[in-house]
């Protein structure tokens, strides 16, 4: 296959994919996701895996901890998909599929999500310092050595969800009279 043919085929595939994603984004949200209250409730759900990750961090290395972490990771993946649906994938689609208002909204959400993620990391650093001090002075610790892997993994996953969560929280009511 010549280079030109391959390039034309690639651009056609990209255009098809863009059209499918755009079509999906333009569809009205399901009724249960359209209300502002529901969307805001969904936007704060990342607190659950975060709490789960912290609990897993405090547990001894066992099957129970592994099970909790599997649940946490599964919950994170499910929540990310739900948040992206609620925010019309605004944080996930490339720039070429967004108009100027959407680019502005996405950038604003990233700015706020960055601040929230830095806040979360600051709390974790403070916990890590407290943990180190406790270990040195009293011999006990909040989180076992391996537990920090679970905590940081959960923090990373929750951080990845943050832009979609902010967009879901700030999303305005869909216009029901689109052709009005």
């Amino acid at each position, binding site marked *: 296959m010549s280079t030109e043919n391959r390039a034309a085929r690639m651009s056609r595939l990209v255009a098809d994919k863009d059209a499918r994603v755009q079509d999906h984004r*333009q569809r009205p949200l399901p009724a249960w996701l359209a209300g*502002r209250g529901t969307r805001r409730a969904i936007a704060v759900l990342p607190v659950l895996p975060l709490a789960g990750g912290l609990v897993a961090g405090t547990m001894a290395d066992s099957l129970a901890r592994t099970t909790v972490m599997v649940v946490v990771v599964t919950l994170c993946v499910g929540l990310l998909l739900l948040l992206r649906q609620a925010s019309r994938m605004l944080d996930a689609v490339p720039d070429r599929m967004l*108009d*100027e*208002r959407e680019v502005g909204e996405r950038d604003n959400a990233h700015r706020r999500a960055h601040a929230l993620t830095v806040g979360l990391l600051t709390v974790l650093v403070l916990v890590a310092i407290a943990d180190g001090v406790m270990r040195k002075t009293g011999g006990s610790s909040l989180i076992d050595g391996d537990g920090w892997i679970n905590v940081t993994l959960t923090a990373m996953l929750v951080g990845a969800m943050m832009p979609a969560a902010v967009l879901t929280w700030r999303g*305005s*009511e869909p*216009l029901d009279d*689109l*052709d009005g």
Partner: protein
Amino acid sequence: MAGNDSKDGRRRTGVHNRLPVLRAERGVSRSELAQAVGVNAQTIGFVERGDYGPSLELALRICAYFELPIEAVFSLAPFVPMSAQLYPTRSGEPT
């Protein structure tokens, strides 16, 4: 820019517009206008509600679509209702 908050907590822009009137007058839907100027139909709704101030480029594209000067479509002061412009009071002053 001066602005106040709308019902859903969004910051309203200080830019007023006549898009709903112009669309109704010419029988143009939000989707058609959005397609013509290259934005999402929701964005036209946001502009109409005053929840989003369009860029200069988008404002000019909208004006070009309606073949009107920019001051006929967008304004920093609220527009006088068309009825008041068409039917002034006896004193000659708009209501």
